[in-house]
């Protein structure tokens, strides 16, 4: 029992016996009241993009626990979790950065840190959250406890007077962050050994219009997709002195420019065994790439333009959702059989998919049906739905323990 707690609540002249009784009463009150002890490892949040709120969900009960409101513009919001998985850091489009307590479902702190933001990340040691911004272009570093701003790194380029939109921010081992400059065609790394003075390394000429990036699951490679040319920019974070290389020379929309109705997200690049499964840009294909040679080894014809291509955590299945006009469909690819094994219609406008940590369930947001569909990944059958208003991103606390999320 925490004696300081008891004393602080019951200061003054109380005798020890009375104090003990009173403290027990307080604890009993707690146990009987709303604040039952529970963990957060099976919790998550669903972003309600139109209403600026989150639904806190329980993946064991397959139920919504409650809603947290007042988070601003959450179109294209991103969420990361504290290393104890109790707090969610929500990065909104309007530059809002909000720290939410999943247990009390309240806003702990909120700052408006930019005019137009696209996401953020949390450091390896959990002490810092970093926001990536379109306007003013750059990244900002915050104390994860207080949200005090520690550093501002403007994404300047050219003669130094212009600022680029920042995309593809990812955390990397060594308390480093990696990101790409959309307008400048550069990749930067920022080392937060001294969080008030991040040490930035610039890699110029990385490629034209990088639009998203990711760190591979073990944290070694940073890969940025390029919109302005074919190929992927790759930086080996173990050997940064080698600079940015170009891999997958045919990755992109190629000579025949096809309309791309939604930029594919790279964060979900599925890696199964030595193969990576990537969304082709503007084509109705998923590309299969050997991650040791970075050579394309196959193409899987799919129903539409893929947006997310995400592996079930055991990598036996790869789930794929699509851009307009095929965004009501989800396909499941069996990596052993080498074929599509299911064509699902979880709802209208499926924006995102999130697997539970060990992959027995997948949650899919059906924006235009105002609900989240939950599928059993063994039977490929829907098992529950949760109502949410225009749901988009789904984020489970298991992300707290993963590199590059």
């Amino acid at each position, binding site marked *: 029992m925490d004696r300081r707690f008891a004393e602080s609540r019951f200061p003054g002249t109380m005798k020890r016996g009375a104090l003990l009784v009173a403290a027990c009463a307080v604890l009993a009150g707690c146990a009987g009241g709303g604040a039952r002890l529970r963990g957060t490892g099976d919790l998550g949040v669903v972003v309600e993009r139109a209403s600026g709120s989150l639904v806190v969900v329980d993946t064991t009960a397959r139920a919504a626990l409650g809603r947290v409101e007042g988070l601003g513009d959450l179109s294209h919001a991103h969420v990361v979790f504290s290393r104890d998985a109790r707090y969610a850091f929500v990065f909104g489009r309007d530059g809002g950065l909000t720290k939410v307590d999943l247990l009390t479902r309240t806003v702990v702190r909120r700052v408006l840190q930019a005019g137009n933001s696209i996401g953020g990340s949390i450091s390896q040691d959990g002490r810092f959250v970093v926001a990536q911004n379109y306007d003013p272009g750059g990244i900002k570093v915050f104390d994860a406890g207080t949200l005090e701003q520690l550093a501002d790194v403007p994404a300047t380029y050219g003669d130094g007077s212009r600022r680029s939109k920042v995309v593809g921010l990812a955390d990397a081992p060594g308390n480093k962050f990696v990101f790409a400059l959309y307008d400048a065609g550069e990749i930067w790394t920022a080392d937060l050994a001294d969080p008030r003075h991040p040490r930035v390394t610039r890699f110029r000429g990385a490629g034209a219009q990088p639009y998203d990036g990711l760190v591979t699951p073990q944290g070694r490679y940073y890969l940025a997709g390029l919109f302005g040319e074919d190929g992927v920019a790759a930086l080996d974070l173990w050997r940064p002195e080698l600079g940015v290389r170009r891999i997958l020379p045919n990755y992109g929309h190629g000579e025949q420019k096809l309309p*791309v109705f939604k930029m594919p997200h790279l964060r979900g690049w599925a890696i199964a065994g030595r193969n990576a499964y990537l969304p082709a840009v503007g084509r109705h294909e998923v590309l299969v790439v050997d991650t040791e040679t970075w050579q394309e080894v196959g193409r899987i014809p799919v129903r539409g333009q893929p947006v997310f291509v995400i592996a079930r955590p055991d990598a036996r299945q790869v789930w794929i959702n699509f851009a307009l006009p095929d965004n009501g469909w989800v396909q499941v690819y069996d990596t052993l059989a080498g074929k599509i094994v299911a064509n699902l219609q979880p709802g209208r406008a499926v924006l995102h998919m999130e697997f539970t940590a060990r992959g027995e369930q997948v949650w899919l947001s059906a924006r235009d049906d105002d609900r989240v569909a939950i599928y059993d990944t063994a039977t490929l059958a829907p098992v529950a739905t949760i109502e949410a208003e225009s749901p988009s991103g789904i984020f489970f606390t298991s992300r707290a323990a993963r590199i590059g999320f």
Partner: protein
Amino acid sequence: MRAAAPASMLAPVDPRKRHRWFALLAGTALAADAATACAAPAAADALRTRALVRLVRQDCGACHGMTLRGGLGPALTAEALRDKPREALVATVLGGRPGTPMPPWRSLLTEDEAAWIVDSLKAGFPAR
């Protein structure tokens, strides 16, 4: 009459235009008004109109922001578009902008629908 652009996206400047898309949205039989107002896509088709509003807010919003204040793509607020010629904007919607991620929407939108979207953006786009 075209003073400071409205902060609220529900407050278009031109009352005639407001009347027009209000009629479209409601899908009501303000036939005389709707018929004279413009070559709107199937004025009676409230469902399609709602789908268009949703498309702009949600799907165009993926790049331009759901509030249309910009993102990877530029802002599409009435103020931002004030000096841009209507026909050029319609052409951009239908044909895209080479060299940028703006795709041609011709396969998903008719010319009338693109024109309706541009007019509505210039007037201040409806929220839903």
